């Protein structure tokens, strides 16, 4: 049974070896989020069986507070797979560190004493480690430092959010359209689509014209609807299932019939026809006027000629004189 001592050794190694192992692991794994290498002055670490036996990823997050922080400090963390979580809060104050009361809360209930507190110089550190396995462990975790005033730092754990389209999707009867839902850097276990009938969400089943396409990328899903009818319009929901919870997004589909743009189209065409007719008629009218005025002028001139001729004999002498004066 040589294997047994080996196994036993793996299950309950010495604390010193584990400390070394932990330090090595901490330096080897890339730290998430803040990336600032925190030098945690902790001398002893609680050991959890799950933390060593599982192969979950590790998450480390840190919040810094001072006695003068006026606004509550929050950090939003997106998580989709079970992970080992390592939360640290540090508090800098000029007062007496021993007089500071440190507590941790999840949502609004107080957590028991499985967190650590330590101090260096004028900074107080507290660390809370736990594992998130399912949706019950998601939520808001807060660290509290109470002197005279209470300072608070909150870590919000959420599943990835989905992004659809903010504006409604417009399409026409007889067309086909694709509704897309996607999330950044996520791998949901399952995608589902719902359509709403009034206020009831009905899953999009195996209907004639609706196909769910999930192939291309794991972080997006598409719902293709062909041969659109007016009843196909309305609200659609895409639903993503993660190990740590669910997420959903709303997309609006509007199906129009061809009559909707046809009415303004016909109105504008009628306006253009009117314009063209007006322009051409105006031109004909002015041309007629010109012709009439030309004819009128010629008529006048002919009349003048006649009258001049008739008066010519009497006014001959004055006319000649007029012409002479102008001839100069």
């Amino acid at each position, binding site marked *: 049974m040589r294997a047994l001592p080996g196994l036993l050794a793996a299950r309950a190694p010495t604390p010193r070896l584990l400390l070394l192992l932990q330090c090595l692991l901490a330096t080897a794994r890339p730290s998430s989020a803040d990336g600032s290498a925190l030098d945690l002055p902790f001398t002893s670490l609680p050991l959890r069986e799950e933390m060593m036996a599982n192969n979950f990823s590790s998450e480390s997050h840190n919040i810094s507070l001072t006695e003068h922080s006026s606004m509550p400090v929050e950090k939003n963390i997106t998580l989709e797979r079970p992970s080992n979580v390592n939360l640290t809060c540090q508090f800098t104050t000029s007062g007496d560190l021993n007089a500071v009361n440190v507590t941790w809360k999840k949502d609004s209930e107080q957590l028991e004493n499985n967190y650590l507190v330590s101090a260096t110089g004028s900074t107080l550190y507290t660390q809370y480690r736990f594992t998130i396995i399912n949706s019950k462990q998601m939520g808001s975790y807060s660290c509290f430092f109470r002197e005279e005033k209470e300072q608070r730092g909150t870590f919000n754990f959420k599943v990835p959010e989905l992004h659809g389209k903010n504006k409604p999707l*417009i399409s026409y009867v007889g067309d086909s359209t694709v509704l897309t839902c996607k999330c950044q850097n996520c791998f949901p276990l399952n995608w589902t689509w719902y359509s709403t009938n009034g206020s009831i969400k009905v899953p999009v089943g195996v209907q004639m014209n609706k196909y769910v396409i999930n192939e291309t990328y794991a972080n997006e899903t598409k719902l293709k609807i062909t041969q659109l009818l007016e009843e196909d319009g309305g609200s659609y929901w895409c639903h993503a299932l993660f190990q740590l919870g669910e997420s959903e997004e709303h997309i609006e589909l509007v199906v*129009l019939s061809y009559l*909707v*743009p046809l009415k303004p*189209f016909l109105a*504008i065409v009628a306006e253009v026809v009117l314009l063209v007719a007006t322009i051409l008629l105006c031109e004909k009218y002015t041309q007629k006027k010109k012709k009439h005025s030309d004819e009128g002028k010629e008529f006048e001139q002919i009349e003048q000629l006649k009258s001049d001729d008739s008066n010519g004999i009497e006014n001959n002498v004055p006319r000649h004189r007029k*012409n002479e004066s102008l001839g100069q």
Partner: protein
Amino acid sequence: MARRTEPPDGGWGWVVVLSAFFQSALVFGVLRSFGVFFVEFVAAFGEQAARVSWIASIGIAVQQFGSPVGSALSTKFGPRPVVMTGGILAALGMLLASFATSLTHLYLSIGLLSGSGWALTFAPTLACLSCYFSRRRSLATALALTGVGLSSFAFAPLFQWLLSHYAWRGSLLLVSALSLHLVACGALLRPPSLAEDPAVGGPRAQLTSLLHHGPFLRYTVALTLINTGYFIPYLHLVAHLQDLNWDPLPAAFLLSVAAISDLVGRVVSGWLGDAVPGPVTRLLMLWTTLTGVSLALFPVARAPTALVALAVAYGFTSGALAPLAFSVLPELVGTKRIYCGLGLLQMIESIGGLLGPPLSGYLRDVTGNYTASFVVAGAFLLSGSGILLTLPDFFSCFSTTTSRPQDLVTEALDIKVPLPKEGLEED
């Protein structure tokens, strides 16, 4: 009614300017704002961006290569029926496009049909404008071309609004109705009552005579070179700015600044072209040289203030050369061959417009930045302006468009009823 051999330089001519203004807005404004539909087509047909951009490319190519056809037809039938037909074709193309089920459908309806409609509108209108104006030709052309700039501002948000309410099918339907206004603009193109000799031969004879006309050919080569460099900043300025680590919003703002100074440049140049005595070719050469210089300086400028100043300078000078490029032509070939001349010119210079941007892109790929592209663009412009030196009347002191005394005498002798009273009125 006495018939005049000289263009009226006003009167109904201003209505033609208005018509040309709306036409350039409806043709080029629509083309330039088509990028708004681009995203919708990519999503609706699931095609790649390159294949969708062919729609606009085919449209532009058909519009430019079809210009000689439009010009030839308007020489024969006059501008009015040709432009009205063009308007109907353009609107029909968009209408059919709204029923499209595939990308090929769009290539044929928007690219081919609407493109040929546009080809029948623009060249005849500008030629008609030149028939109406001689002393104020540059200003009239400039005012007409401002339609392009203003519509680029207005149509992009309008199309976006249409898309958000009617999707692309309904929007194409309504853009078709909008394009139908080209017919109304065409109805305004009353042929001027000039006592011209009938056109020298038919369109074919005119084309052959133009192709043997030395100055015209040199001018075409000059404009082709200018065209090669002209469009490059519109396409590559934003990318160049992003290479210099500019944010998208300030980069877009810089383009708007250039567009505004383009508009101002057009009008100022038009006014200047008429106010300054002497051939317009000299002014064209001035603006072209300045544009080339400002383009070549772009890679050198690094500071934001320098870039803004260069953008304003480029916008102003490039806008300034646009109307003059059209008003030089009547001086070269005469009003009788203006229609054919304009069409032929557009067709040949479009080669430059089509080759310039890909060449610039290729240089960018090879060298890694836009320095070479901008310098080459500037070089094209400068060489084009150099060829302008070889045009006739460049160094003369008088403009060829001033009215000659013998024309007035012909007028006086043309009176039908030679009454003494009428003779006195004439004086």
